[in-house]
Structures are given as C-alpha cells and as structure tokens.
C-alpha cells in the first residue's frame, strides 16, 4: 500500500489507509483515555461526597482554612489556559503555524502560574499544620474530624497537580513539534489530542473549585 497519495504522508502509519482514519482512531483512543481519567477522579469525588455527608460540619469548618481568592485566581488562570489551548488547535487547523507556537507557549505559562499559586497555597497549609492524615497538627479546630477534609484536599488537588505536570510535559512536546512546523490543516492530531487532555484537566478543576473552596 502506498502512503504517498495523501499530503504529509510521512505521518501516516503503515496500518492505516487514510489520514482521516488515523485521526479518527486517535480521537477515539483519546476520548477513551479521558473517560478513564474521569472515573479515576470520580472515585475521589464519590469518596469526598460520602465523607462530606457523614462529617458535614467538620468539612464546612475546615474549608474556611482555604484561600478563596487564590482559588478564584487559579480558576481564571486555568480557564484562560483552556482558551489559549483551543486557539492553538484553531491556529493549526487554519495553517497559522507561528500562532500555534505562541498559543502553546501561553498555555504553558498559564500552567506554570497555576502551579506557582498552588505552591503558595500548599506551603501556607504546611506551615499551619494542615497536613493530610496522621501528619495533621493544626491547632484550634472547633469541630472534630477536620483532618479528613484536608486528606481529600491534598489527594484531589495533588492528583490534579500531577495531571497539570503531565499536561505541561506533553504541551512542551507538541510545542517542539509545532516549532519544527509539523502541523497544518492536514495533520494536527497531536495538538488536538493534547488539547482534549488539557481541557479535561480544566474540567476537573471546574468541579474541584466549588467543592473544596465554596462548600457550605
């Protein structure tokens, strides 16, 4: 079988017939992967929901220790990064190769800012003794059981943070390929798939923010 029939055939793997077939397969694979991510986080959400219903007062009391302003800023940063990400995909589809690089770079910066703010939040929590599980040593709790809120806070934002880090790695990878000029309207699957992943990370934060910072 010949692969030279399609433009940019150098990216067509031997077992696919057309570039569209390859792109579709990639998308199906990515969506399936995203679903596994949803269910992975889903376990924590279910655990959180049930522990929160068993220890409602403790959870409400504990969440006052979180800084809403920082949480809000981080939400804005992440939403913006989703926008720059989708614009990178858009630019690839419309053959504006320079812009792809710029938008990917902006996304990477947003991700960095997000993690920076998380670092500030975490170090503040550590300082206060608001640590997960047995290391919890915060003084002056009014309701027993507040430590469990922070168990979930660290597990959920921690797992999310790991995903941000992973996202930054793959964004850096497509950024390199974009700079090399690999992407065009005929072939932009990697940007597209990384974009899907990044939006999912954003989507999970959309739920984490009200659940952790705004519960009553």
């Amino acid at each position, binding site marked *: 079988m010949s692969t030279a029939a399609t433009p940019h055939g150098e990216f067509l793997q031997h077992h696919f017939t057309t570039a569209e077939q390859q792109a579709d397969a990639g998308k*199906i694979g990515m969506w399936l992967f995203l679903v596994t991510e949803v269910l992975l986080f889903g376990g924590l959400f279910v655990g959180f929901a049930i522990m929160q219903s068993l220890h409602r007062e403790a959870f409400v009391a504990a969440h006052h220790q979180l800084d809403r302003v920082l949480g809000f800023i981080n939400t804005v940063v992440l939403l913006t990064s989703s926008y720059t990400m989708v614009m990178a995909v858009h630019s690839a589809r419309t053959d504006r190769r320079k812009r792809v690089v710029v938008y990917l770079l902006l996304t990477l910066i947003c991700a960095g800012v997000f993690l920076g703010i998380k670092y500030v939040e975490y170090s503040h929590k550590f300082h206060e003794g608001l640590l997960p599980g047995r290391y919890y040593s915060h003084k002056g709790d009014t309701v027993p059981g507040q430590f469990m809120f922070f168990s979930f806070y660290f*597990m959920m934002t921690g797992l999310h943070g790991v995903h941000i880090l992973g996202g930054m790695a793959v964004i850096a990878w497509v950024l390199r390929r974009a700079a090399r000029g690999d992407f065009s309207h005929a072939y932009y699957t990697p940007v597209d798939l990384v974009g899907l992943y990044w939006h999912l990370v954003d989507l999970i934060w959309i739920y984490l923010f009200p659940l952790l910072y705004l519960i009553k």
Partner: protein
Amino acid sequence: MTGNYLSSPRGLKSWLITVDHKRIGLMYLFSVLFAFLLGGIFAMLIRIELLKPGHNIMSADTYNRVFTLHGAIMIFLFIIPSIPASLGNFVLPLMLGAKDVAFPRLNLASYYIYVAGALFAIAAMVTGAVDTGWTFYTPYSTTTNGSVGLMTFAVFVLGFSSIFTGINFIATIHKLRAPGMGWFRMPLFAWGIYATAIIQVLATPVIGITLLLIIMERVFSVGIFNPQLGGDPILFQHFFWFYSHPAVYIMILPGMAIISEVIPCFSRKTIFGYKAIAYSSIAIAGVSFLVWGHHMFVSGQSQLANAIFSFLTFLVAIPSGVKVFNWIATMYRGSISLEAPMLYAISFLLLFAIGGLTGLFLGALATDVHLHDTYFVVAHFHFVMMGGTVMAFLSGLHYWWPKMFGRMYSEKWARVSAALIFVGFNVTFLSQFVLGSRGMPRRYYSYLDQFQPLHVFSTVGSWVLGLGFLIMAVYLWASLRRPMDAPANPWGATGLEWQTPSPPPEHNFENAPSVTRGPYDYSSPEPTSAEVEA
C-alpha cells in the same frame, strides 16, 4: 512469499521492541502461562494443606499468604489479560482483516506495563508477601503487616496495562475493519472483545483509585476507609466491587467470545442467533455495572441496597442464558467433530452451565445469606472462572495454536489431557459445593473434622487436574519442535484469520482482504466468508 512473523525480522532485540500485534500476543501468552503455572502451584499447595485439619505443610500465616497470592496472581496476572491480551491480541486484527491494532506502540507499552506490574507483584511476594486475600478488605489491609503497599501498587500498574489493551481494541474495532465488514459481519469474537474492552475502560480506573486510597490510608491515615477515624470500611467494599464485579465479566466475556467461534466451526454450521449473541455481550457489559452489591449482602450494606442489587443480579442471568441456548441450537443438525478445541468448548458449556445455575443460589437473598463466604462461593467462582474462562482459553489456545506457530499438536494426547482436566476439575470443585452448603467457611486454614472426607476428595481431584495440565505442557512443547507443517486452515473454518498462511506473514495478509459475506458461512458449498482480492 516473504518470511513469516516468527522468523522475520530475526533476533531477540527485534522481539523486545516489536510493535507487531502477533508478537506482542505471543509474549503475553507466555507471560500469562507462566503466571498460570505460578498460581497453579499455589493452588496445589493450598489443597495439600487442606488434606487434614490443622498444620500439614505450612503455618496459618503462610497459608494466608499462599491463598492471597493464588488469588491475586490468578486474577490480576493470569485471567484478566489471558484471553484478550494474548489470544485477542494475536487474532483480533487478523479477524478484522487489519494489519495491526490501532495503536501498536501503546500495545507494546501495555505489555511492558504488565511486566512492570508483575515485577512489583514478585517484589511484594519476596518482601514479606501479603495476607489480605485478593480482595484487600479494609481495615484488615490497612493494619496488617507485609507488603500490602507494594502489592496494591502492582495491581494499580497492571490496571493501566488492561486499560491500554481495552482502548486499543475499541479503536481497532471501530476504525480498522476490512472494507465490506460492517458491524454485523464481524466475527462474534470481536463483539465479545469489544464488550470486554468497554468494561476494561470504564471499571479499571476505579480499582486504580481504590488501591491508591489504600496506599494513602497506610502511609498517611487519610481516614476514608478507617472506622476509627470516622471513615467507612463498607464504602471500600463498594469501591472494590464496583470494579471487581464487572471484572469477572472482563474474564468471562472473552471466553464466551471464543466459544462463539469454535462451536460453529466444529459443527460446520452457521451460528444460530448471531445478533442475539452480539447484543447479549453488550447487555452483559452494561448490566455488569449494576450488580456489584451482591458481594455485600451480609456486609452491613443497607437492606434497600440488598433488594435492588439482588433484583439486578438476576437480570444478568438472561443474556448469559441466551448465549448458552444459541450455542446449543448451533449444534442442532450440524456436522460435529470432536477435536480438542471442541472438547474444551463442550466442557465449557457443561461447566459454565453449572457455574451459572449455582449463581441463582447466590443471587437470591435468603439462600445467599447462608452460602455467602463459604466454599459454595469458592466452587461457584471456580466453575465460572476455571470451568468457564480457562476452558474457553484452552479451547482457543488449541484452536489457534496452528495459526500461531504453524504446527499441529498431538490430537491424541490433547484428548487425554482434556478428559483428565474435565474429570479432575469436577472432582475438585463439585465437592466444594457440598462443603459450602454444609457450612464450611472460605479462607480457613483448618476446619472441623466433619468436613475432612470432602476435603480429601477435593485435594485428590486437584492432582488429577494437575496431571492433565502437565500432559498438556508436554505435548504443546513437543509440537514446537516439529517442522512447520500446519495448513492455512486446518479446521476448515471461515474467518479472515484462516485466509492467510500459518503462521501469518509479518503484515498479516499478502493482499488486503475485503469482505462480501457474513461470518460463519459454513452452510455454503465453499466454507469461506471472504474472497481475497488478487
């Protein structure tokens, strides 16, 4: 003709970095067979220890570790990857007329992740092992000594391997079917694998997070499953069974898929009720997510949940029953020959029927309360998993063996071994139904004297079973030393995998196939479902 996939390219390195689904399938095959051997040795040790009450060959502590390792190895290292990742990997793209799976590199990654998970499991074994049972129930698992953290991490890693296989197969079935192969011209094996892959993708992440939570609980005491800290140990059981119940369908659906191939072939007759079998696979996958609570009828789960789960559990009996009846109807007025694959398929039918029917006892609330956590459950599970999945796996192994290696095995010894395995299996596990009904709890190191005769019976059965497998290992190994003489289609089967030489060339087909007829076209003068375009 160029060389076949076994010989070209040459060299160990070409195997280690291969992205060929056939080679990856073979590497999986030998890995899971090794896991089966290891799990089988633990099983034999358990049976010897149970020959008489009290201490025989090991202490209670060792016994607990041995049965945990038997369960964990058999489930996570053998039976979950057994059919999909080994036989499925090899056969599925061939059946669909594809050159490879959708993501060959992901496929290789899945294999190495499996190996990494296996290494973690072995590390857990040698660094103190695990005595929690394969179910890792809290708070036992969060308080006991041993390498629970390492073992749960191993299972977490193995989960990724399973997820990647599932993602790969779904994308492959969607996008890489040969021209002319619509959804309802697909072999039923592909339907079964598709349903399996759905469960792998949807359920496995939940066990992943559950096991991470156990590790968190052990390292940080996060509290979620710890009753002393306001957590809920029964919630752990919900988390665990939300995966582990669907997981038993990850194990049995591919087995059913193989039976749907073998029975029409050896009856030389069109499959009866193609659509019913195809849809029942999807139905099983769907309903499997709604029945997990039947593992928790006596756990302290609410009675409301008990009632709901009991009802939903009975619904899952229907699609399984539909399949069995369709397979039997396929044999009606067929031309049946009893080569080894068909012998195992018939073993499957009979043993799976018993496994399924005894499920009725465990789905009904009143009888389950009595039988829960007894040997009745152990026997039921082994009838479905070993009598079902393993028999189907052996059926598929013998069916596709000539395709994989280009060599036939000794049919005579295959029949001897099939007979020994069938008899040995029944002796081993039928007695356990009686033990369980009479009140013998599972996971017991020692037992009351009254149970001894049946335990002896069961142990002797396990020796017959072991002998059967020993013979199989010998004749299969011997077949590999013979010259490659298997014809392309030794069984006269339809299906694209038989349209290419045995063993197949590196890229599967000399010419890309296209499909013009339905599968299982055995009733036509020419037993072929596809014409290979010149």
